[in-house]
């Protein structure tokens, strides 16, 4: 009987907590809910009821979580953490290489690695992603050329553009992929950078 009563009390409490946590963003709401449920289901019936008393009103828990999110949080500071710095770095990484071939991209990388708005792993990802993407494209074309060199060409030349040599086709593909990956990485860096420097609200 005691167990049934406790189980109902726990379920009721978790349901009320779920309702209150609806105004708390994910994944924070789920983390709080899981943390509370984990505790209530790990202890004895008697302790579970005591825990519910200790936890208090679910509305208070949700309010505390929300107020912490709206409070100012520590942000990146120091050299290379201003909005202008973040924007300039992202601009150079995306279009710098088109305006000043190679040099613009290298300057963008120098700014990226000197900036305080990004973590080391983010800098590594941003630096290597375009290179890896281009490398993969050339590797694919190389493998394709290896596999097709031993076979007879298709009678209707299907699968290749007769107006372009294969190497030119590979270069164009690599360029397009590099631009697309660069833009995607730059957008990610912009969001992360502005969020970390406090210019946009964290999720």
């Amino acid at each position, binding site marked *: 009987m005691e167990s049934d009563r406790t189980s109902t009390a726990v379920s009721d409490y978790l349901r009320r907590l779920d309702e209150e946590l609806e105004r708390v963003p994910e*994944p924070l709401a789920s983390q709080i809910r899981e*943390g509370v449920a*984990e505790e209530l289901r*790990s202890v004895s019936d008697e302790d579970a009821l005591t825990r519910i008393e200790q936890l208090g009103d679910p509305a*208070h828990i949700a309010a505390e*979580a929300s107020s912490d999110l709206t409070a100012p949080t520590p942000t990146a500071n120091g050299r290379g953490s201003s909005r202008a710095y973040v924007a300039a770095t992202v601009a150079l990484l995306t279009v710098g290489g088109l305006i000043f071939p190679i040099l613009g991209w290298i300057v963008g990388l120098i700014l990226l690695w000197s900036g305080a708005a990004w*973590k080391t792993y983010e800098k590594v990802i941003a630096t290597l992603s375009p290179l890896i993407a281009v490398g993969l494209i050339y590797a694919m074309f190389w493998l394709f050329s290896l596999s097709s060199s031993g076979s007879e060409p298709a009678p209707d030349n299907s699968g290749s553009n007769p107006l372009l040599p294969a190497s030119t086709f590979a270069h164009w593909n690599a360029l397009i992929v590099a631009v697309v990956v660069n833009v995607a990485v730059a957008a990610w860096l912009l969001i992360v950078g502005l969020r970390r420097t406090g210019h946009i609200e964290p999720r």
Partner: protein
Amino acid sequence: MTAELSPQLRKGVVEYCVLGLISTRPMYGWELADQLQTAGLISSIGTLYPVLSRLRERGDITMTELQQGPGPARKYYVPTKTGAQRLSTFRADWGQLVHQINLIVGEE
């Protein structure tokens, strides 16, 4: 701590207190909340999880699920190398800060 000053002070140090607690042994959410509430650093478990979330995003702590005794597995928090370094730096800075503040405001 006065009511006016304490929220700011608490917010500033609570992340380091979490790192300090889990530097001795892995701890789960309730344990952390209980100790921090007893110390008057947080007012409810609702304040703890945003702190844990920030520490995880920053790469200062990681979470691992462990089954200990009956009941479901619990999520335990442990400091990463970065978190341990951050705590070490804070310990040195905090000592100096307290010393300097005491020199200025004096001790009772």
